[in-house]
C-alpha cells in the first residue's frame, strides 16, 4: 500500500470517527440518546429489504452527480452549479419525453436523455466560457447560474408547462419507464430503487477508467494539479476547461433517469432537494475518485433514508448537520494528515 493511499484511508477514517463523535455530543446536548438514535437508524435501514432499497434509491442520484462533479473537480474547477445544471437538464428531458412519447415510442428515452444532457452541458459551458474569456472564477458564475436556472424553470412551469395548480409537468406515458429492481429481486419489494442504480455503478466504473486509464483523463488531472506545467506538456488547458465542464454538467442531467423514468414519470420543481450541493460533499469525501464516490454516496444514502427512519425520535434535519460536519472534518483531517503524517508543509 502506498503512503498516499494509507494517508487517505487514515484521514477518511479519522474524520468519520470525529464526525460521529461530534454528532453524538450534539445529540446528547439536545436531550436525545445518541445510541438509541443510531440503533434505530441501523435496524430501520438494514433490517428490511425495503430499507436497503430506499437507501440505494437515495444513493443513485448522488453517484451520478458525484461522477459529473468529479470531472470538474479533477480539473480543479469548482463547479458549485450542479443544482442548476441538473434541474435544467431533467426539466428538458421530461418535456421532450412528454411531447414525443407517443410518436417516438421507446426511442423517446435516448432522445430525451440526449436533449437533457445537451441542455445541462450548455449550462456548464457558460461558466467555462466566462472563466476562459474573462478570467472570472467559476464559483461565482455557477452560483448565479443556479438561481437563474431555477427561476427560469419556475417561470416556464408556472406560465406554460405545469399541470394546473401544481409545479410539475404532465405525466409521460406509462410504458416509457425504467424497470424497478424489485422486478428482479423480490427483496426490494415496495422500494423505488430501479435499474438506474446499476447504471450509476457502471457510470462510476467507466468514469474511473477514463480518469486513470486514458490519455484524456491524464490530461484532465494534469491540468487540475498544475495548469502551468501542463501547458509545457502541450495540453490546451482552456480546451480541457470547456470539455470537463460540459461533460461534467451533462452527466448531472442523468439523474433524470432515476427520478423521471424510474420513479415519478414527470419533472417536479424542487425534486432535486439540493442533490447538487450534497453531491459536492460526496465527491470531496471520495477525493474525486469515482469508485470512492460509490461508497460515499451509499453512506449518504443510508444517512438520508436513516434520517427519515429516525424522524420520530429526532428531526431528520440532523442529517444536514451530519453531512456538513463530514465535509468540514474530512477537509481538516486531510490537511492535518498531510502536515503530520506525510510531512508536507
Amino acid at each position, binding site marked *: 500500500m502506498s503512503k498516499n493511499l494509507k494517508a487517505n484511508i487514515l484521514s477518511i477514517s479519522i474524520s468519520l470517527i470525529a464526525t460521529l463523535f461530534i454528532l453524538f455530543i450534539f445529540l446528547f446536548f*439536545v436531550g436525545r440518546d445518541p445510541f438509541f438514535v443510531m440503533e434505530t437508524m441501523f435496524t430501520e435501514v438494514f433490517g428490511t429489504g425495503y430499507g436497503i432499497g430506499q437507501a440505494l434509491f437515495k444513493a443513485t442520484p448522488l453517484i451520478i452527480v458525484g461522477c459529473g462533479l468529479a470531472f470538474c473537480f479533477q480539473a480543479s474547477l*469548482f463547479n*458549485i452549479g450542479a443544482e442548476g445544471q441538473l434541474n435544467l437538464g431533467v426539466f428538458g428531458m421530461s418535456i421532450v419525453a412528454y411531447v414525443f412519447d407517443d410518436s417516438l415510442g421507446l426511442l423517446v428515452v435516448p432522445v430525451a436523455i440526449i436533449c437533457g444532457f445537451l441542455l445541462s452541458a450548455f449550462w456548464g459551458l*457558460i461558466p467555462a466560457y*466566462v472563466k476562459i*474569456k*474573462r478570467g*472570472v*472564477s467559476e*464559483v*461565482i*458564475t455557477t*452560483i*448565479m*447560474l443556479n*438561481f*437563474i436556472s431555477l*427561476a*427560469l424553470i*419556475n*417561470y416556464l412551469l*408556472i*406560465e406554460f408547462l405545469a399541470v394546473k395548480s401544481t409545479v410539475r409537468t404532465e405525466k409521460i406515458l406509462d410504458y416509457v419507464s425504467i424497470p424497478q429492481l424489485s422486478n428482479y429481486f423480490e427483496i426490494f419489494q415496495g422500494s423505488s430503487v430501479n435499474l438506474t442504480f446499476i447504471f450509476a455503478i457502471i457510470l462510476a466504473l467507466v468514469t474511473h477508467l477514463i480518469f486513470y486509464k486514458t490519455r484524456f483523463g491524464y490530461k484532465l488531472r494534469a491540468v487540475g494539479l498544475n495548469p502551468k506545467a501542463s501547458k509545457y506538456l502541450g495540453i490546451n488547458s482552456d480546451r480541457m476547461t470547456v470539455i470537463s465542464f460540459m461533460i461534467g454538467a451533462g452527466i448531472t442531467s442523468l439523474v433524470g433517469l432515476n427520478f423521471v423514468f424510474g420513479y415519478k414519470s414527470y419533472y417536479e420543481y424542487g425534486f432535486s432537494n439540493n442533490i447538487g*450541493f450534497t453531491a*459536492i*460533499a460526496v465527491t*470531496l469525501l471520495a477525493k474525486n475518485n469515482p469508485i470512492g464516490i460509490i461508497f460515499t454516496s451509499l453512506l449518504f444514502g443510508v444517512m438520508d433514508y436513516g434520517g427519515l427512519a429516525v424522524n420520530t425520535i429526532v*428531526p431528520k*434535519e*440532523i442529517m*444536514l*448537520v451530519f*453531512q*456538513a*460536519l463530514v*465535509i*468540514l472534518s474530512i*477537509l*481538516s483531517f486531510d*490537511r*492535518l494528515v498531510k502536515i503530520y503524517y506525510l510531512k508536507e508543509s
Partner: protein
Amino acid sequence: MIEGILSITFMMQVLRMFTPYYLGASAANFSERGGVINIAIEGFMIISAFSYASITIFTGNPYSGLFGSVAVGILFSLLYSFFTIKLKINQIVIGVGFNLLMAGIAKFLMLMFFQSSSNTPSFTQVPVLPFLSSIPLVGDLTGDSIIIFALILVVLSQILIYKTKFGLRLRSVGENPEAAETLGIKVRIYKMWGTIICGFLASLGGIWLASNQNSFSDGMIAGRGYIAIAAMIIGKWKPVNIFFACLMFAFFESLEIVLQISGSGIPSQLIQMLPYLITILVLIGFVGKTKPPAADGVPY
C-alpha cells in the same frame, strides 16, 4: 404603477431592502480585502437570523437577542478563520461546508425548539424610540438602528479601508501578503480581523431580516447572501460602488413587490432572476472589468 415607484413608501422600501444587501456585501468585502473569500455569507445570515429570533423569544429581550446573535456570528467567523487561515484549506470548499452546516443547524434547532419546520413563533414588537418613530421607517428599534448603521457604514467602511492604518494593512495583506510580511505586518492576524468584521456585519444583516419579520422562517434569507457577494463584485470591492450596486438590487426587489401587487403581468420569476443575470452580464464584461484583490483566496 409609476406612482407606486415614485412614492415615499417605495423609496423607504428600497432603503429597507438595501440594508441586508449592504451589510452582507460589506461583510464579504472586508473578508476579501484581507484575501479571504467567504461565500458563506448566506449561512452566516441564516444562523444569526435564527439565533436572534430564538434568543429573543426565550429571553423576551431583543437586546440579548442582538448581542447573542452577534456573538454567534463572530464565533462562526473565528471557526471560519481557523479552517481557512490556520489550516489553509480551500476557502470555497469551506464556504460550501459552512453554508450547509449553518443552514442545517438552524433547521434542526428550529424543529427541536419550536417543533416547526417552517418558522419560529413571532416575537413581540420591540418598543420604538419616540424620535425614531417620526422617521417613516416602520419597524422596531433594532431594525431601525441597523438601517441607519448600514447607511453610516458606507462612509465608515470607505474611511476604514482607505484612510486608516488598519485599512492600509488589511489591503496590503489581501494584495501581497509576502510584501506585507517583510514590512512586519502580522498577516494572519489581519486576515482574521477581516473575517471577524465579516462575521459581525453578516450577522447584523441576518438580525435585521429577522427583526423586520418578527420571526425566523425557513428560506427567509432567500439567496440574499449570494446577491450580496454579487453586489460586492459589481461594486468592484469599493464601498461606495457597492452602495450603488446594493441600491440597484434593492430597487429590483422592491419593484418585484410593486409589480406583484399591481398585477402588471410581468412575471415575478423573471424579475427575481434580474440581479443574477445582471451579475453574469457584468462578469462577462458589459460593464468593464472587475478585479479582485490580487491574493484573494490564496492561503498564506
